[in-house]
Structures are given as C-alpha cells and as structure tokens.
C-alpha cells in the first residue's frame, strides 16, 4: 500500500488578514504558518492510522512550495509518514498545483491519494478533483469516514442533504473533512525522528497557470451594533421585521 497525502501551508487561524502593494499581495509579515487543518487533522492523521494498522504501508507527503514551506513539512513529518516531497514552486492556481502533484503521483504509483476538503486560505476545494481527472481515477469528495480493506476503500461522504457510503477499488483520490480522523499532537520522539526523514525537492514540470489573483479586498466594516434592552425583546423583533426586513 502506497499513500500520498497533499499538504498545504496556510496562515494560522488567528492571523490578521491584510494585504500590501495596492492590495495585490497577502501581507505575510507577522503571520504564523500552520499545516492546513483539513490536510493535517483529517487526511494525514487518517493516513498515519492506516499505516499503524498495516506497517508495510509507505506514506509520503507532498506539497507545492518554496523552501519556506520546509518547517511545515518537518512539523508534518513529526506526526508520522516516511518521506516528504516538495515541488519547488509557488502558485495560487488550483490547476497548476494539482497538475504538479499529478506528475509526482504518476511516477510514484500511489494507491491512495488524500487531500483536505479545502485550504483555509484560498478555499478552492479543487485540487483533489483535478488530480483525479489527470490520473483518470475516481474522485470521492468530502469524506467523513475512510476504511481500507485490501484494495477496496469504503468511504462515507457528504452529499446534498445527507451522506452516502461508497465502495471503490484503488487507486482513488479522496478529499477529507471532519470525522475521518481526530487531530494529534506530535511527541518528542516524532519531532526528533522528523529531522532525519528524507525531504526530497523536485523541480516543477512545465505547466501553465489558468488563473491569477488580480487583487484582494477586505469586507466592509460593520456600522456598529444596535443594542436592545433584555426586557424589551419585542423591540428586537420589530427592528428585524421593520428596519432590517429579514423576518
């Protein structure tokens, strides 16, 4: 069994979001970086659990990023996994990122490729589907449960208005969300081991970006809260009905 988990570096959830150069670039000064929570807590931890059940499993991580992604990769390796691959490029285009990963995936012949449901910075939710299309394998989105049985994966996934259980033969690409696994905290032994695990750097393939970010904007600030006295609940209902017109 060979598993590839795609990880991304994202700003910490408490980061102040600001932009520079005439709102064309994200202001990285003062930002703490983390592994995208969906990739780490769900996709990667589940892969680690699968390897714990079947120690013969080979577990690789892949990210598209410049050398400043290395600390995040080491943090991930402290949780588990055998080896990381960093594709030495940076992009915010889903197609570019997914096509780079698909190249790595092709040469590595992985049975299972996992991504998070989306990243908490660009929120694209697209990389998994594009990888699957480029590899011509099935794509299962929004998984909340994942079991392996030989070469069959049983996946519970979120659909409109409920959930569905899918059975699929490997290889497959799956995007993971809450339910698939629980967040883990790295221990000292893991942190030490991560230092010596291989981190392979590969140069990107020649692939075009199909989108580019032109500018950013912050949402308009709220005008300020209108407080209603606790003994005058009727007034709140009146305001919502007559002023805000939402009920």
């Amino acid at each position, binding site marked *: 069994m060979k598993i590839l988990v795609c990880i991304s570096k994202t700003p910490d959830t408490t980061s102040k979001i600001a932009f520079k150069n005439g709102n064309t670039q994200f202001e990285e000064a003062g930002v703490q970086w983390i592994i995208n929570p969906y990739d780490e807590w769900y996709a990667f931890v589940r892969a680690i659990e699968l390897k714990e059940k079947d120690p013969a499993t080979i577990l690789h991580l892949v990210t598209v990023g410049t050398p400043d992604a290395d600390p995040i990769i080491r943090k991930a390796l402290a949780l588990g996994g055998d080896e990381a691959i960093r594709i030495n490029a940076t992009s915010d285009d889903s197609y570019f990122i997914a096509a780079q990963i698909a190249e790595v995936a092709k040469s590595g012949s992985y049975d299972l490729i996992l991504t998070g449901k989306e990243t908490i910075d660009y929120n694209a939710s697209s990389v998994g589907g594009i990888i699957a299309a480029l590899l011509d394998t099935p794509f299962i989105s929004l998984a909340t449960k994942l079991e392996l049985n030989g070469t069959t994966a049983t996946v519970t996934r979120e659909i409109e208005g409920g959930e569905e259980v899918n059975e699929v033969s490997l290889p497959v690409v799956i995007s993971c969300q809450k339910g698939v696994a629980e967040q883990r905290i790295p221990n000292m032994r893991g942190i030490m081991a991560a230092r010596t695990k291989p981190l392979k750097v590969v140069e990107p393939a020649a692939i075009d970006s199909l989108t580019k970010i032109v500018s950013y904007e912050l*949402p308009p600030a709220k005008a300020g809260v209108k407080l209603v006295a606790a003994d005058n609940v009727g007034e709140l209902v009146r305001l919502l009905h007559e002023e805000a017109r939402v009920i």
Partner: protein
Amino acid sequence: MPVLIFADHADGHFKKSSYEALSYGAKLAEQLGTTSDAVVLGTAKEDLSSLGQYGVRKVYHINNASFDTVDAQLYAAAITEAVQKTGADIIIFSHNQTGRAVASVVAAKLKAGIVTGAVALPNTSNGFVVRKTVFSGKAFANVEITSPIKVVSINPNSFSVQSTGGSAEVSPLEITVGTPKVKITAVNKVSGEVPLTEADIVVSGGRGLKGPENWGMLEDLAHSLHAATACSRPVADSGWRPHHEHVGQTGIQVSPNLYIALGISGAIQHLAGVNRSKVIVVINKDPEAPFFKAADYGIVGDIFEIVPKLTEEIKKLKGE
C-alpha cells in the same frame, strides 16, 4: 459562445442553489451578449421548460437513470461531453456538495481555469475576473481566468434568484455513459431539514447553552423562523450537536440573511465562517463578548430568559 449551467437537483427536484446558478449564468450571458443553456442529468420530476423563467434559452436533458446518484467521474464525463457538443466556453456550477464533487473534475478535463466560491458576476470589461471569498470569509480575491474555457462555481446564498418568466426549450442530449467505478452501498438522507448553506435564516448555539438538553429552546426559535440550526466548534466536538452543524473557519461557511448567535463568544475562527451573513444578531450575557463587534443587533442578557420570549414574540408577529 453560450454559457452552460449545470442545474443539479435532489431526487428530481430543483433547489434554490440551482436557481441561483441559472440566474447567475443567464445574467452573465446577457452581460456578454450571448445565450445561456442549462444541462440536467438524470430523472427529473419537474417540468424542465420552467427553468426558462430564470433566463436560460434551452435545457439539455441527459435523461438516464445512471445519473440519479452523483458519481463524480461519470458526471464529469457527461458534462464535459455536453460542453463539447454545445460549444459552451463558460460553465457554471453551484459550490454545494455536488459542485465540490464535480466542477474541478470537469475543469481539468477541459483544461479550464476554475474559480470556486464566486460571490458576484464576473467583471468582463477587461478579461474575465471573478470575485470569490478567501481566507474562509475573512477577505475577497478578484481572480482572473486566463484559459479559453472557464469554470465558475458560485457560493450558495451569494447571488439572488432572478425570475423573469419565460419558458425554455427542452432538448434531449445523448451522451456516452461510462461504467461506474464507485459502488454506492448506502444512502442516508435527512429529510425535511433546510440545508445549512442554503438557509435564509440560521440560529446557532455555543457553549453558553450549557448542554445538549437545552437545545429545545433553540430549535423552537429556529422552527418559528423556518431556520436551519448551527453551532460553534466546541459544541460539535463535545458531541452536543452533529458535526455537520459546525460553522466557522474549520467548519461550514454560511451567508444567510439573518444569523442569530446564542451563547457564542465570537472567536475569530467562528466569525470567519459567519461574517458574510447580511444581518447578525448576538445574544450573550457578557457585554465584552467579541461577537458584539461583528453584530448588527444585540441583547446583553441570559439566553435562557430571552430565547423563549423571542420565540413568543416571533410567533405573535407571524400570527401563530
């Protein structure tokens, strides 16, 4: 070249998110001086010509029961073929669960640039620039699609349904149906509930409710408003409420007309998922709770006293 809108349905019935996508696609076509068509897969239980009221000219119907469940690979292959047969160069999806399963696969097959989570019509005055949410609702990005074929999926509740009347021509479309590689062994649908991302009103509870046994009053309030229910992350983590109700940066992002927060402090990660709501009401006993800074209306007080009164007042208003 025409705009093609994927109109998805749940068990044969169309939903608000499909009408939003149709309205968006039709408006975009108007802006570009072209026409818009819809594509429907699987068995429909409604009159497809009625989709014309949202502005589409034609509805291509791939009427094959293989599409009554969503297999991303089969769907993507069928939609890709429909795009090629109709010559469309812009394809619109809703960024709902089905959209998340299918849109990116279609984009890759067509080598089309994709922007998901769009919140406004593209700016086409110079190129094709789509506004979308980034940083889980904390900001917007304007993203240019540079490829000849373009795929856009729109955030539910971000673009209003525009019904202009009219009827569409329904035209069957024959396509090759692939062999499914995914076997569906069980389907579990929660019926009768308003999907959280599509709800006009959301009533949400935090740790201030003290325990799952107190959700009755929140549900009564939600019921009086025909609202969907949601919760903060620790509430879902403690198992008080199901995970699919967890909103925020690491949960679901919602943008209803009205979001009512009961006993939620308003941590930055929570706000990220709800701050695109049009109107926010916060009820919290702590006047310093950060949520008040993001709110439009608020009451400082005890939810256990206020919520039942609020439900009574709403019932009175609605004449119940």
